């Protein structure tokens, strides 16, 4: 077990290192002179070569690729994200403010998704193939086909423009969070309904369950020892999958509803060519993503030891 954990950990480190190289290669190869872009953003258009060179020196854009990579990755290893190339302020406090907006929104989206999908999937699987089940499947298929940004726009159109019940733009009051959370939650609900539904159907279809109850194993024991582990595998998978879905949805939702958060932070950093901001979000996301997947992998192996043998 210790050996497995260590190899998983090593794998995660390799993946993170790869992500770092890819990210830096992208920043390095991004077109245009980043020094000029940064200087323009900082001093408007009144530029002399001296100013650009000064900026270049300051931001450390002179070295060769691997030299620059080492310079770049060193501070990141201790989670020092440096200063913004545009404002000159440290990245971390601004990033933290964004997280405080994004994290509750993500949680709310996940909660809405669960509140809708769990009862829907359980009710639907009472009678597979019947009307309610077909309805659930149809709604879920439709839900996964709707792009988050369009759903958000439709909700704004209905609840903010036509009915004037809810505010659409900004993040001043808790009411401002309702439409963004709903947009996110409906998307999550669609994909969760599909996964939970097939998870329940699969767990129920296990051949050994009737045999166990014939042998006099109590229903409680069957549920605890056999159904729960079987149902747990898809649930654990979902955590990994939904995280990606949430992050993708968040970027779009925050932009549509004009909410300050990681998504807005990222898109405006890209538009401003504020590389320290971009890389901070990228590194943070990769770190969270790889950590969650590492934990998922470990739990997987706890539930079902066969998984380790399948992919060596």
């Amino acid at each position, binding site marked *: 077990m210790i050996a497995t954990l260590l190899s998983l950990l090593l794998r995660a480190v*390799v*993946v993170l290192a790869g992500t770092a190289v890819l990210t830096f290669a992208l920043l390095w190869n991004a077109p245009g002179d980043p020094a000029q872009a940064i200087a323009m953003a900082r001093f408007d258009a009144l530029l002399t070569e001296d100013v650009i060179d000064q900026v270049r020196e300051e931001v450390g854009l002179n070295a060769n690729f691997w030299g620059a990579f080492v310079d770049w990755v060193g501070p990141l290893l201790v989670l020092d994200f440096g200063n913004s190339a545009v404002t000159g302020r440290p990245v971390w406090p601004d990033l933290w403010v964004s997280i405080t907006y994004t994290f509750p929104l993500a949680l709310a989206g996940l909660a809405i998704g669960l509140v809708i999908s769990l009862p829907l999937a359980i009710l639907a699987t009472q009678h597979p193939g019947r009307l309610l089940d077909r309805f659930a499947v149809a709604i879920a298929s439709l839900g996964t086909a709707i792009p988050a940004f369009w759903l958000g726009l439709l909700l704004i159109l209905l609840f903010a423009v036509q009915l004037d019940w809810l505010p659409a733009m900004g993040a001043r009051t808790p009411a401002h969070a309702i439409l963004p959370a709903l947009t996110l939650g409906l998307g999550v609900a669609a994909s969760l309904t599909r996964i939970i539904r097939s998870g329940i159907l699969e767990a129920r279809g296990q051949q050994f369950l009737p045999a166990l109850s014939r042998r006099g194993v109590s229903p409680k024991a069957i549920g605890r020892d056999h159904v729960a582990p079987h149902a747990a595998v898809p649930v654990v998978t979902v955590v990994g999958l939904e995280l*990606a879905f949430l992050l993708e949805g968040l970027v779009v939702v925050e932009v549509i509803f004009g909410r300050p958060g990681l998504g807005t932070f990222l898109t405006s950093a890209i538009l401003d060519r504020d590389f320290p901001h971009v890389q901070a979000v990228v590194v943070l996301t990769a770190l969270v993503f790889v950590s969650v997947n590492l934990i998922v992998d470990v739990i997987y192996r706890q539930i079902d030891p066969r998984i380790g043998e399948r992919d060596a």
Partner: protein
Amino acid sequence: MRSVAVLGGAIFLFVLVGPFLAPHDPTAINIPERLSPPGEEFLLGTDALGRDILSRLLHGARWSLGLAFLVSLIGLIIGTVIGLVAALGGKLADWAVMRTTDTFLAFPEIVAAVVIAGLMGAGTWNLIFALSVTGWMRYARVARGIGLSLQSRGYVIQAKLAGLSPWYIARWHYLPSLLPSLTVVWTGMFARAILGISTLGFLGFGVQPPMPEWGTMLLDARIHMRSTPFQMIWPGLAVVTSVLAINLAGDALRDALADEGNHS
């Protein structure tokens, strides 16, 4: 397989013929007629520059569906080659490929595409690059998984004994077994690419105006949401319909293949 063939044909036809059915020039600016409601002259109305929305939708298929088709096909080719290298290239190649795949998967695909397309600069080529680079991993995993299971097949051992090149073995002994599963993956990735292209277009990192890509159209429409909400309906509906149709065809194909597997 037939449902996918029919779907592919329908999309191809729509992309090919659609623009010829357009009653107006999709980029012709006509200020006096701007923001007209749907009517006889403009069946779905006009946008803020007086361009016919129906014509833009029909031409937009070429961008939204055509580019998604291209991107998912590039991903299919890259991913299959990489997966086969892992399956055929021995332990070291396999390890390297799998860790590379994990690295590319260490980031939500659309977010990665936004970062790549955004940093490289908005434009169609950068969009294609960004979505292809972030869209090959599923194919690679499937190709590798099936490829490894084929290694112990009699005919693969025979081909190796005969001294055939890995390229020949991959082409004639691996690819035919991979194609059905890869087609299922492809339908899913095609749908994802449509969503990706429209999302990037909407965020301003994708196809640029005045090209009538559906996501880009929604970006325009959003500004005039209060005065002319109908503008926002059509491009979104086009995206949803396409994605839904492709997903349903993919589900049907997967079920058909599962049935075939059960019978043989």
